[in-house]
């Protein structure tokens, strides 16, 4: 027998029925395809955000303030968000650390991007993006965050755009709860992202700021830390910067036997070196095959007995398109390189693409 049915579920099933009715009218599209036209940020839709402000920080860095859609679940300072940005009409996904206060009253979030030479997305975001642009979002993720119990003494070691996740932590008031030292490197004073804000904070005694201007003073060596921050090995440390710096820091902390106190964040994905061919793994069938750099993935897969979808075998029909889960492939026609990191699922035409490194293909 039933007890009283909660009102909520009745409402929910009414909504479901309404949705199903709407689907019978919108087929083959979904009601959301129409709703996206008028309310791209609504709850329940794919997660997106609208850029509401682009604020220059330094000559080559800018902060983007984003109004996320209603489905945004918030973030913890230090985490990052994946942005899907259309550059030259092509959707590109990149990760950016959140620099805004967590749980801001207006619900807005911010990321701060540094344009790197020849960087496709970073230059687009810093120099060509206008307020009003809609971007695709993922929920915040990442474990470069403070533990629940705030440590008494904290060291931040950052360089260049590596300041971004740390800024998120500072803005959320870390310095009021802990003794904070920040050692930050940038080419010159004018290149320090958030320079004014950091110096003001230091001026008020909120933290001890050590700025290193590498154009004049050279790169910071880890051995210098003994002088700059004598108690650094006892501090809970978060480091974010270029690959070389992070490698050196990890080695240093390990050699001091305090590796567990070090937390690092890397901005560069694992380098996929485009070589001559590579190992192909078909993730669903589990088949693996060594392919050379001249053999189309379609042929390589078929030779290994994988049931590959195919059609014209000359690059015009798209009957062979499969998601590249991760790896690198070279377009045999243009020599262009397409790379994918986990989560991208870039779609490639297997009949005209050859492996240029280890590849995971979804099939």
């Amino acid at each position: 027998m039933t007890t009283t049915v909660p009102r909520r579920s009745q409402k929910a099933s009414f909504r479901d029925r309404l949705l199903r009715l709407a689907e019978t009218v919108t087929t083959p599209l979904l009601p959301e395809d129409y709703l996206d036209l008028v309310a791209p940020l609504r709850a329940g839709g794919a997660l997106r955000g609208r850029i509401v402000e682009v604020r220059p920080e330094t000559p080559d860095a800018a902060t983007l303030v984003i109004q996320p859609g209603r489905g945004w679940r918030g973030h913890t300072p230090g985490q990052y968000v994946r942005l899907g940005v259309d550059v030259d009409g092509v959707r590109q996904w990149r990760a950016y650390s959140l620099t805004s206060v967590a749980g801001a009253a207006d619900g807005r979030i911010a990321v701060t991007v540094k344009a790197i030479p020849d960087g496709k997305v970073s230059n687009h975001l810093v120099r060509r993006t206008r307020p009003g642009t809609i971007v695709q979002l993922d929920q915040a993720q990442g474990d470069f965050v403070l533990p629940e119990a705030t440590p008494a003494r904290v060291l931040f070691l950052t360089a260049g755009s590596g300041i971004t996740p740390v800024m998120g932590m500072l803005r959320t008031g870390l310095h009021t709860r802990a003794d904070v030292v920040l050692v930050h490197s940038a080419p010159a004073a004018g290149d320090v992202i958030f320079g004014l804000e950091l110096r003001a904070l230091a001026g008020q005694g909120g933290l001890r700021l050590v700025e290193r201007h590498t154009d004049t003073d050279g790169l910071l060596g880890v051995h210098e830390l003994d002088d700059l921050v004598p108690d650094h090995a006892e501090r809970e440390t978060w480091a974010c910067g270029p690959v070389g710096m992070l490698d050196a820091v990890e080695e240093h902390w390990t050699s001091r036997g305090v590796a567990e106190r070090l937390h690092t964040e890397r901005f560069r994905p694992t380098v996929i070196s485009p070589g001559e061919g590579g190992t192909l793994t078909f993730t669903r069938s589990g088949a693996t095959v060594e392919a050379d750099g001249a053999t189309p993935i379609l042929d390589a897969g078929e030779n290994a007995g994988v049931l590959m979808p195919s059609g014209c075998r000359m690059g015009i029909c798209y009957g062979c398109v499969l998601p590249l889960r991760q790896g690198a492939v070279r377009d045999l026609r243009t020599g262009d390189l397409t790379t994918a990191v986990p989560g991208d699922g870039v779609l490639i035409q297997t009949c005209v693409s050859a492996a240029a490194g280890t590849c995971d293909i979804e099939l």
Partner: protein
Amino acid sequence: MTVIQKKAVNPVAHLSAEDIEIIGKELDAIRDRVIADRGERDATYIRKVIKTQRTLEISSRAVLLFSLFPPAWFVGTAGLAVAKILENMEIGHNILHGQYDFMRDPKIHSTTWEWDHVSPADQWKHSHNQLHHTYTNVVGKDNDLGYGIMRVDEDQKWHPMHLGQPLWNLLNACFFEYGIAAYDLELGRNLQKGRRKAPEFRARARAVGRKIRRQVLKDYIVHPLLSGPSFLSTLAATFTANLIRNLWSHSVIMCGHFPNGVETFEKTSIEGETRGEWYLRQMLGSANISGSKLMHIMTGNLSFQIEHHLFPDLPSSRYQEIAPQVRALFDRYGLKYTTGPLPKQVASAWWKVIRLSLPNRHTAQPGPAAPALVASQPA
């Protein structure tokens, strides 16, 4: 290998094998230039067309809720017909070709798109993209040639059944989407005994059944029911809109490969075909339609059938831009660029259907006695 023509006058007899490969290289260069420039403009364009189409469709359907009033019926029906045509031609056909796959937008991608048509997208992609575009106008291999039920080339053997083909063609035009679903299923072949029960065919037939159910439920049940007292008039409106869409797309598609001047090819002629020869077959096997910008959009730019067949995966709005370059290439190599206004091309295609419903007049004449061109001979 060679492109073999059975016509008395061989349109490529003057080309050497090297000429054909150079034509191929020049076409590759045109393609490369478009690809290098492809980007934001194309993405903006298709998104705009999609937005326009969706707005038009939903507002036309809203107007049709009051279709009891004749002005509402006319406006709504016209709007819905245009929306359906846009959806099938400029949007569906072209997205399913992978023309916008470069955008990497999962919402506008050949592998995820489904269209307002009774043939499920994946089945249509197989029969259209892979069979028709690869075997364009190869008698016996390209189902688009007469859809397996008509005689559209002198070389096809005449059968008394063909006497009825003007009527079949008219019926096919009225219910074109069902005709397409049937030949995507290769019904003619698959209904034969022994094939009917093949699990692969049955699964595909079920998928078509599901798609038909959804389409019918939408157009002929739910939408009319939502119109309340306007039930019957909305039913008539959606039927009319589908009819208009069918007649229109049938006409456009007939114009692509049937009119006079378009060549057909023998099965053996494509064995070992080079890229240049493949291009040449596309050049000679297609015909364009001349007209206004609006007409081009309403045909999904299939009015640039020649350019589309050369480069099926380039964004459709680019065909118009490259057409002068392509035409210049035809002229330079003395090839016939078949084009004409819509009424003329439709009439020419229909005339062929009617003419070939009767046996060839000079049965002995066109046969393979003059076996034809041979592209590999130096001119």
